[in-house]
């Protein structure tokens, strides 16, 4: 099925399993551990989508944008490559190596390009290199049938397919990549677009988001993003989450912590009790970004270069567990998923509702870890406190 067929089907809502691991020192490991973790969470998915994001996998091409593109027709590939050649200097193009797998059927043509924007079109566009890439990716995804860019960051890559996540890992030979952040997702969609692009992670530049949940505020979140030029063509909740993060953090320059406090906002009763000037800031945040509040059950793990973040909705309607061992941070839907990556963690905890867990490269302190002072203790919030 190609994307234009998918577009006619309904927005996909899903339950899911998530796992993530990060070395705070940048130590790189292959994808076996995260594969084991998501395999343990097998029953949280139904074989209709699995995927991974890995950071630090292309050190030899770390200054290039790595485009992973799937094609469902030769014509789409020809048209896309015309667009790419016009816009980019292509340093390297190759098939993404795969290994046949019984659980993965009818793969599209999977290509990988390492590119840099060409000087002239970039200057003519008058935008940053990132925005230039973003525009081309959106153009290909929205306007070229049967072609889909599913990864476009630097020194990172997304790998996804229709199938169980562990089969996807084997198919894409993830045991051969070395990364310091691995994020994994197994999907349980409640309706069935059998299209590879619909699997997680959802990516945009070096953002990668995996998501378990249904966004009950999808309608307004999407309309809000449309005001800023985002085109929600994929009809997945997760797309909205990725665009919101891009808007808030990259384009509006909000710190990650505050972006999390927009997406999973503290309750008014809590804001009322904040000291100034924090109360003023949070009042302004909620007023200004009211339409960016993500309501409904969710647990997400998102990554970007040097950072991995786990976040729950503000009344924690989906599970998320975090753990530390040495310089490693682990996140998973279930503790079993953590222990598949790390059998003997130093510390396991359940992140508070709406309170991000943030691991940062080069910092031994994890935001949201018990015993550490959260930089903004506003975000973590128990429903009982607001109700009383």
């Amino acid at each position, binding site marked *: 099925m190609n994307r234009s067929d998918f577009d006619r089907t*309904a927005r996909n809502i899903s339950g899911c399993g998530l796992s993530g691991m990060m070395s705070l020192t940048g130590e790189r490991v292959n994808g076996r551990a995260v594969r084991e973790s998501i395999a343990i969470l097998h029953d949280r998915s139904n074989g209709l989508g699995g995927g991974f994001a890995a950071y630090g996998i292309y050190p030899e091409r770390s200054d290039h944008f790595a485009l992973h593109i799937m094609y469902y027709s030769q014509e789409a590939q020809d048209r896309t490559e015309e667009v790419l050649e016009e816009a980019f200097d292509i340093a390297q193009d190759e098939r993404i190596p795969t290994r046949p797998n019984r659980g993965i059927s009818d793969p599209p043509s999977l290509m990988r390009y390492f590119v840099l924007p060409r000087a002239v079109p970039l200057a003519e566009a008058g935008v940053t290199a990132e925005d230039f890439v973003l525009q081309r990716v959106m153009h290909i995804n929205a306007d070229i049938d049967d072609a889909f860019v599913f990864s476009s960051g630097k020194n990172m890559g997304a790998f996804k397919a229709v199938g169980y996540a562990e089969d996807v890992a084997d198919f894409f030979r993830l045991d051969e990549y070395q990364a310091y952040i691995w994020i994994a997702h197994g999907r349980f969609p409640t309706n069935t677009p059998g299209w590879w692009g619909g699997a997680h992670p959802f990516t945009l530049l070096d953002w990668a988001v995996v998501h378990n949940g249904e966004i009950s505020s999808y309608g*307004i979140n999407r309309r809000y993003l449309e005001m800023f030029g985002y085109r929600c063509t994929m009809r997945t909740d997760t797309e909205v989450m990725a665009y919101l993060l891009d808007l808030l953090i990259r384009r509006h320059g909000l710190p990650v912590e505050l972006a999390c406090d927009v997406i999973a906002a503290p309750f008014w009763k809590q804001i009322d009790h904040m000291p100034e000037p924090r109360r003023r800031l949070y009042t302004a945040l909620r007023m200004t970004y009211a339409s960016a509040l993500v309501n409904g059950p969710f647990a997400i793990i998102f990554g970007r270069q040097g950072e991995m973040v786990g976040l729950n909705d503000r009344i924690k309607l989906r599970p998320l567990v975090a753990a530390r061992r040495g310089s490693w941070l682990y996140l998973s839907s279930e503790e079993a998923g953590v222990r598949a990556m790390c059998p003997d963690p130093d510390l396991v905890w359940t992140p508070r509702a709406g309170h991000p867990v943030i691991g940062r490269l080069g910092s031994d302190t994890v935001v949201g870890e018990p015993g550490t002072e959260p930089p903004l203790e506003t975000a973590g919030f128990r429903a009982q406190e607001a*109700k009383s």
Partner: protein
Amino acid sequence: MTTSSTDRSDTRPQTRPTAQPRAVRAPLYRPYEFLWEHDPERCARCKRCLQQCGFKALTWQDGPVVDPAKCVGCHRCEAFCPQGAISIRPSPQYFRPHPLWTQSHRRNLWLQAETGGVLLTGMGNDLPYPVLWDHLLLDACQVTNPSIDPLREPMELRTHLGRRPDRLAVTWTNGEPRLLGDLEPTLELATPIVFAAMSYGSISLNAQKAIAMAAEECGVMWNTGEGGLHADLRPFAHRAFVQCASGRFGVEADYLRAGAAIEIKIGQGAKPGIGGHLPGEKVSQEVSETRMIPVGSDALSPAPQHDIYSIEDLRQLIYALKEATNYEKPVSVKIAAVHNVAAIASGIVRAGADIVYLDGFRGGTGAAPTQIRDHLGIPIEIAIAVVDQQLRDEGIRNQASIIAAGGIRSSADMAKAIALGADAVAIGTGALLALGCTLCQKCYTGRCSWGIATQDPALTRRLDPYLGSQRLVNLVRAWSAELEEILGAMGVNAVESLRGSRERLRGLGLDRTVLDVLGVKPAGVGA
């Protein structure tokens, strides 16, 4: 230049009797609207019904006798008869029914043949146009996302009205994030409800007091209407929109400074394009002081504001008012929902308004020409949808809030209005019903038996402002609790997650065009 002398006549309001009507002394027979019946067996002969009737329809001739031409069917006498001896029913039709020449068309026509006047009426449009609220259905959660129990979980209705920036600038100092720059003034509502504009003059001071006190207690806003701010209501002004309308009645510096926000009234849903008329008989000493006009003089609001003949003129007035109040108060612009409402609203936002108040064609009024009330404007459902979409298409939705009014009957209507894109709803008719109004539509006579739309001290004293405010508080609380239930069923715990979320609405029995205008999918189509 040569035509200037003839142009003058064109600007005259057309709401008054045309030319010199000749009263026809022997009216044609016309059927009465109500059948007033009285049971002499039960009657205790207390004459209370005579006292209660504001319209003087009853006289005493060894028992109450009705002048059926005067009975408006307000049911005041019936409600206050201690013996239950009175019943009022619609009058049976004595004339052969006709689908085109309905009873009301015939009545109106005979009345005009008799008087030569413009037909007047009160309250909102009573013709059976389709009610789109009744063709929209709300969503709920099942399995894939959980519903939320508002009795056990926090549920947020707090709403802000006014201009918001598109983005915030934040700096970190000593590990603490701080907001850079100033924010525009906004209004905070505890629940997305405001009371609609109803002036002192159109309604009694007691009615306005009841509304103002309720607004204060509920943490919402009330609206002075075009009647100025009575001295007794100064303590409630911090919860008031003070209105600046075409007659400029009661507008002075202290009035503008007293309010929480200023509203420029361009139009009203019940009478788009025309002004107002408070007859001199209703301009008592107190009304005179509040409106700043001589006692007994007609208070005529011109159809347009005579300093606003264009959008740039509106901009000047908006900024004149902001200048006069030191940019400390949001400015709202109230317009009737008309065919081109989206483009007009966009212009209003670009002219500097912080709030756009949309009044649909079912909005109420104290007095309006019947044909104007019943045939001009568009439904509020459509107006919200097209204005919200237009402001989004232009990327200026954050710059102003939308208040929707004109036929909000229940919390479900409110939820649907918010899902279509309104920030808050205004309730006028609903508030008057809570105070005892029975919708007899005779507000323009000034004889309201319930003490609401009258200035007659014998009638206004019937409305206890404290008890009235409690009824309004109950209404706002009940609707808020119901809105919480609706949000919980939808699995969201803040009203902003419903606001503009048309994905949570489905249309039933609406054609493709209407669905497209509303931006709503038909029932049966999934997410």
